[in-house]
């Protein structure tokens, strides 16, 4: 599965960002290039998890306001700046769910769903896709994010690791475990439905 090149971080890019951050610490107006670079990514991350477009824009703006307000506390520790922004985005997003008592959205892409079906060695048919959607909805929040980031947002394991503050290998292992769990959910659902149809 091809990952989105937008998320790739190079050493040169990181160094460039660090210079912008240093300047933004002195004057918030210098945050502009960082805003331009990450606005879309952060917005898509938020948009993927909620159903209100306007609210997604508002939360994105709030993320950058928070980032500028706390830029002085940011220190580079081998993790790209984007990870820091994602952490703020996650916090703001969950705060919004709590404030508005709204639902956490799972936006499923049927093409990507086909990739998941392939990964769990199931036949890519309509029934399996339907059962898979039900299976995803049964997962815990911590588990859903691996499926979401890997398949629906096409992130690399490195990127997932950086966002969740875990290693690339750990991200791989955890994603694999979630897929295994998903497989067992789909299997048990199918067995249950078979038994139901017999009676």
């Amino acid at each position: 599965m091809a990952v989105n090149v937008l998320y790739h971080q190079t050493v040169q890019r990181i160094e460039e960002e660090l210079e912008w951050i240093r300047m933004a610490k002195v004057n918030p107006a210098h945050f502009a290039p960082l805003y331009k670079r990450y606005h879309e990514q952060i917005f898509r991350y938020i948009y993927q998890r909620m159903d209100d477009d306007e609210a997604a824009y508002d939360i994105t703006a709030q993320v950058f306001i928070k980032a500028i307000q706390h830029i002085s506390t940011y220190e580079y520790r081998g993790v790209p700046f984007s990870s820091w922004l994602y952490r703020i985005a996650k916090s703001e997003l969950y705060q919004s769910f709590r404030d508005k008592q709204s639902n956490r959205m799972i936006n499923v892409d049927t093409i990507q769903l086909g990739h998941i079906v392939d990964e769990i060695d199931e036949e890519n048919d309509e029934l399996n896709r339907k059962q898979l959607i039900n299976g995803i909805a049964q997962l815990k929040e911590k588990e859903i994010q691996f499926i979401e980031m890997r398949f629906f947002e096409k992130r690399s394991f490195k990127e997932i690791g950086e966002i969740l503050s875990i290693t690339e290998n750990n991200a791989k292992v955890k994603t694999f475990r979630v897929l295994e769990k998903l497989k067992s959910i789909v299997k048990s659902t199918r067995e249950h439905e078979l038994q139901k149809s017999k009676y």
Partner: protein
Amino acid sequence: MNFKKVNIDRKQITQEEIEQHQDFDKILESLKRPSLTKKHIVLKTMFYGILSFVVILGVNFHFSTHQADSKQVKSLDNSPKKFINAKTKPSGFVDEVNTVSENIEAKEHHTTKQIIHKQMEELAVPEIALDRKEELPKKSQLKPSNIELITEHPMLIPSVNGVQDGRLLYSDFIESPIIEIGEGYRVVSFNIDLQSKREGIAVSGNRFPEAVMHEFSLLPKSIEFTLTKIIIEDKVGTQFLAPSMRLNLIK
């Protein structure tokens, strides 16, 4: 939070649409004005700050008034030198009256002053200015006087330094509002019923100097009062209820 909401093949927003919403100037502007949440936090902090301050003040006031009253007794409780010699256990005491003492302690929430004031109000008599200490007799002004024990009891002698033959020195008595008996025993608490010879004055309380001494300072010769609910404690901590005792304080 509910995770059950699944949206299939949602319309993807184009890059152009997202870019249209990019407005860094707006972000900078909102940074300049204080946000509503910040205001909220400040107001909340102020509210809880003031509230806790008031609560702390209230608690402090409560304890300071309560402690001022109990401090005297506490300090006097720890004065073993004022025991007098006695070799036998007091007779006529009622055993194990812990419950009685508990009840009395519960009633002691009010200060002596409050009790006296209240009783004076009930009797509709002119209020005696107990708050003005200068009206009370000072130790230096007092000549050694005696307290005469009217109701005699072999083990229950109001005692302070220099007690002899059931008589005790008044000068010490004014600062030692506790009665102590026999070695190894001490008086935990007592109640004073004072019937002044001045018409209409009745003072009752469980502290010595103020209630008794004030009346004493007003009267030319002597004052008679009764000690009731005298609770005595032995070394082990067992408490006894002693019979009431009448005393006459003579100038």
